């Protein structure tokens, strides 16, 4: 064994003298980013003067937003209920479908022949922004809540089916092997070997999706797919800014309710 205080014959090796060499590649990338930012800001004419003009208009809008006008609270309430229904129905259906899609897309449990098409399906679901999907569904099935529900189902699958699949791919296969060794069939292996390992994460993802669907349910209405968004959009167009404020406050309340709901669910399933 070589003695440790003996100078290694490779001590003069330049690789050892400077082990942390600068990477010219990363320097070039940073320089490129800075140059592009300068270019983009100049071409978009983002000057200080333009900013001041904008601020001025913003102040005027702010003045007209207050005080909030809740005179049409019945319309507000029925829209709120519709948004909530869209969000909850879409979440439940979307999560239920995602459970199966996610399982089929997990590469550690499914052959490539099954998981690859499922991954393509998930990728398609998340390709387009919900607004674009909502427009498509409004054209396909007509104005109203149905289009909103279908939109959010697609959005849910695109998001949580992928997370479900990834969670399943991270499980310990040893536990699965042990269940398989008891002679359990496929469904039992999934229920006892796989599900317990991912259940709490599934609950977390599902609550996140419910939260996200609550927000989006107020947005799909802008393109006519039901809920608060439609009323919000027409209030803007009619310059009813005090009513806009009332709608925005309602949305904030809706999100807070959703937050409380998801906290409760998490606590129950802990």
């Amino acid at each position, binding site marked *: 064994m070589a003695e440790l205080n003996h100078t290694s014959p490779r001590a003069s090796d330049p690789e050892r003298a400077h082990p942390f060499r600068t990477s010219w590649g990363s320097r070039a990338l940073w320089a490129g980013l800075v140059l592009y930012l300068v270019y983009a800001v100049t071409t978009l004419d983002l000057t200080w003067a333009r900013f001041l003009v904008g601020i001025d208009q913003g102040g005027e809008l702010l003045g007209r937003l207050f005080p909030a006008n809740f005179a049409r609270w019945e319309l507000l309430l029925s829209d709120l209920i519709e948004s909530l229904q869209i969000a909850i129905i879409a979440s439940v259906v979307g999560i239920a479908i995602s459970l199966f899609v996610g399982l089929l897309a997990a590469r550690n449990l499914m052959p490539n022949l099954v998981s690859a098409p499922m991954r393509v399906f998930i990728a398609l679901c998340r390709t387009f922004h919900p607004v674009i999907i909502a427009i498509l569904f409004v054209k396909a099935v007509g104005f109203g809540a149905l289009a909103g529900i279908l939109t959010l189902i697609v959005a849910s699958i695109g998001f949580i089916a992928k997370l479900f699949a990834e969670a399943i791919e991270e499980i310990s296969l040893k536990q699965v092997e042990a269940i398989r*060794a*008891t002679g359990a069939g496929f469904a039992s292996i999934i229920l006892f070997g796989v599900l317990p390992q991912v259940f709490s994460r599934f609950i977390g993802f599902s609550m996140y999706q419910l939260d996200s669907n609550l927000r989006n349910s107020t947005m799909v209405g802008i393109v006519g797919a039901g809920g608060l968004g439609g009323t919000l959009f027409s209030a803007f167009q009619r310059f009813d800014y005090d009513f806009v404020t009332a709608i925005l406050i309602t949305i904030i309340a809706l999100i807070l309710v959703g937050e409380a709901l998801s906290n409760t669910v998490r606590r129950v399933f802990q």
Partner: protein
Amino acid sequence: MSDLVIRGLHHAYVADTPILRDINITIDEPGIVAIIGPSGTGKSTLLRCINRLIKPSGGSILFRGDDVAAVQGRPLRELRRQVGMVFQEYNLVERLTVLENVLTGRLGYMSAWKAWRRQFAAEDIRRAFDLLDFVGLGDFAKQRADALSGGQRQRVGIARALMQDPVVLLADEPTSSLDPKTSVEIMELLTTLANDKGIPTLVNIHDVNLARRFAKRMIGMSGGEVVYDGAPDGITDDHLKRIYGGESWLS
């Protein structure tokens, strides 16, 4: 009829690099059969071929007279449920309770629908508690498996295997993750089962002395072949050199 007859078993994960070559073993009486041999010599593969977690490349495995080396579907699951298995790292389902883990030993006997709704037969539940009492964990039934220590987990693993009503028990390095004292306790437990309940038990084990102490029969494997098969007394240093190679570790 012998419980288990292995004839000409060979297996290769990658073509042309066999891990098991022509294994011939007959198991026909209760008691511990210790399989010793260096890491990577195919001991785990051998056990996993017996309960068909791995499909062997060739040869036959006669389980109570039926060749199970190539069965699939329902007959395969019926084979597995009659062969209990204990694992090196216990392989309990961490998020389930101890009782649920033991009851998974019945999954091969019931529908997934009933199992999911936890509709286990009253008799099964009673037996699960009995087995937990037997392995000394009666008070831990409601705890989650990940709250237990290594030795306790392995006892749950043994109770789960027994819940299957196994004809044969396989134990893959059941003591390798445990301290010396707990290792002896686990081996004592397995020996009691093997003798009192009359279950032939194949145990892969690193520790030659532990194997000698508890086994009724020892099988030495090297390079994917059986190089010794007989009484523990019959194993000499020459055999051990042949099994593990080298000799400095023996002194």
